[in-house]
């Protein structure tokens, strides 16, 4: 799609804004339907997510999760693979984090544990992506099916491990013991002197996520491997022609994808919960699909989309806290509408704007 016909600020500024406005307009109608004031609701949503330090902190905390899972989907996407397995890969990634933290937290400070945990998370997530990747590469088994299946298998594995192997004795909760200081990432609030994120769990993993985003950008557009990945995704026959091994590239791309998804667990497990617990991924992997696609598989877009979703999560929580009539389901509806209007219907206003701008630029050029 050539963007040439509209000024850049329209393409990258006005159109997304219009789309978001449409999403909120329709959401407003739903809010109106259940008898609340849409304006007030938007106010609370925005204020709740951006209006004060702690709100921002929560927004960024959620955004961290989405950056990881969004990047995971995007890397696979560039290789022409649709990895729906982020959910399972992140879940298993938690194992890597937990093993590192449980082993080290009482012995060494967090900054020693952290690299081990990051490696553990990435390795575990990558390992979970490996089988689908290998099957796709060698047997042509469709990665969409296998990653869906591996999400379910991950859930079973984790319940087994958490209930029977890793649970702290005597606890009702299928969860490990809580990590000591050596297994906890510092909160950004404590790290940055000027920050005022209050008690929000936004932590060092955010920095890690941003580094990951930058690394993905470099990987995809500035390395030979990224070139191979994109070539394979865009034209598999050309990739073969260019001496790029499809099998190898598929596996590598999926390993990176799985590793990124696995790293989401750093934020949740080492950064916030400080223990491995059941179902901690709670849908972040799936939202990653929407984030990646809305961000057009570009790291910058993903970071922005992740922040938008972080806002919806945090602002939505504030909203349902303030307005009990607006339940958490309402927030899901709003998310759906945002994905619909800002994602799937992103071209809706385009033709109109093109007409307006062409007209404005050349009022004499009569057409038809």
């Amino acid at each position, binding site marked *: 799609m050539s963007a040439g016909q509209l000024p850049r600020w329209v393409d990258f500024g006005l159109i997304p804004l219009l789309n978001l406005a449409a999403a909120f307009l329709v959401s407003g109608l739903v809010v109106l339907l259940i008898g609340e004031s849409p304006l007030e609701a938007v106010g609370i949503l925005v204020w709740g997510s951006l209006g004060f330090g702690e709100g921002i902190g*929560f927004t960024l*905390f*959620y955004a961290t999760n989405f950056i990881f899972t969004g990047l995971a989907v995007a890397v696979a996407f560039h290789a022409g693979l649709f990895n729906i397995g982020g959910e399972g890969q992140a879940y298993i990634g938690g194992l890597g984090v937990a093993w590192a933290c449980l082993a080290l937290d009482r012995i060494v400070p967090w900054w020693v544990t952290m690299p081990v945990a990051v490696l553990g998370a990435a390795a575990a997530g990558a390992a979970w992506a490996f089988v689908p990747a290998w099957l796709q590469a060698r047997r042509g088994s469709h990665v969409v099916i296998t990653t869906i299946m591996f999400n*379910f298998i991950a*859930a*079973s594995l*984790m*319940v*087994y491990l958490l*209930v029977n192997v890793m*649970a702290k*004795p*005597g*606890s*009702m*909760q*299928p969860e490990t013991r*809580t990590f000591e200081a050596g297994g906890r990432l510092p909160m950004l609030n404590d790290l940055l002197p000027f920050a005022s994120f209050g*008690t*929000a*769990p936004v932590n060092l993993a955010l920095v890690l996520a941003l580094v990951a985003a930058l690394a993905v950008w470099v990987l995809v557009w500035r390395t030979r491997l990224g070139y191979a990945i994109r070539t394979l995704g865009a034209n598999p026959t050309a990739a073969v022609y260019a001496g790029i091994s499809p099998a190898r590239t598929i596996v590598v791309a999926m390993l990176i994808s799985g590793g990124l998804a696995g790293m989401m667990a750093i934020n*949740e497990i080492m950064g*916030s*919960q400080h*223990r491995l*617990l*059941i*179902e*901690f991924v*709670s*849908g972040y992997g799936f939202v990653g699909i929407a984030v990646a696609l809305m961000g057009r598989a570009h790291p910058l877009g993903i970071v922005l989309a992740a922040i938008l979703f972080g806002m919806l*999560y945090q602002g939505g*929580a504030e909203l*349902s*806290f303030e307005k*009990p009539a607006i*339940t*958490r389901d309402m*927030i899901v509806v709003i998310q759906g509408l945002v994905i619909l209007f800002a994602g799937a219907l992103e071209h809706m206003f385009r033709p109109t704007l093109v007409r307006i701008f062409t007209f404005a630029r050349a009022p004499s050029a009569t057409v038809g």
Partner: protein
Amino acid sequence: ADIQPAVLYDMGGKFDKSFNEAAYAGAEEFKKASGIDYRDFEIQNDSQREQALRNFAKRGQSPIVAIGFSQANAVEKIAKEFPDIQFAIVDMVVDLPNVRSVVFKEHEGSYMVGMLAAMASQTGKVGFVGGMDIPLIRKFACGYKQGVLAAKPDAEVFENMTGDTGAAWNDPVKGGELAKSQFARGADVVYHAAGGTGIGVLQAAADAGKLGIGVDSNQNALHPGSVLTSMLKRVDVAVYDAFEDARNGRWTSGVTVLGLAEGGVDWALDEHNEKLITAEMKAAVDKAREDIVSGTVKVHDYMADQTCPF
């Protein structure tokens, strides 16, 4: 001044047809009786537990009742931050001076309905359908088995779990299939501890002309004549009491264990199932209740040693 109570539900949400819903019922009951409104919140992910508790606390809500064992860590943390606010947690113990912990002896209630199941069974085979294979559900299952065997030592108990994802608590279709599979193996009474999934279990029992047993709240009315009884877990009472005690200035912290003796767990008998419970059955469970309360019969608590000897 009036108290400003609050309830924080667990992930299942306040209409989970299970303990969260019971908590909601208790809070509503209190509101009706006292005219005092309350706040509540349904979390969507683990990070919101602390956030919501803190939000309540900051607004001066008290007492704040957190439902579900998953809230323990959050309650512990926030209760320390706000020592002047009264907290309560259901299903888990948090040892702090401003926290009331309410735990239930689900195994005792399950024991009672297990006995009823065994006695109502023609085939000597009964079933259990749990949501997810987690300790709490094993606790239900274990008490139930002991009860079944107490009434009929040669009885057989089939035990199934629905799944390993959150959907396990909301999958009536799978619940129905699990029940049907147990019926196919000869069971004719099935007890569920599976939230919304259980609706499918009870439906399958009704469809097949077998008996189901409800859980947490009284589900006898769902299929009158087909639900043998329900194991009541009075989370509603726990919530109601917490609010009421705070209002009357009778608030106590510490651990409250609610078993048969305290009326915290029970089995339901009403007009919907009275025809199903014979005098003989009733007599037997009444006897068992006495024995349990007096301590002559000890119902095994799975959580005590993480095993179920049955």
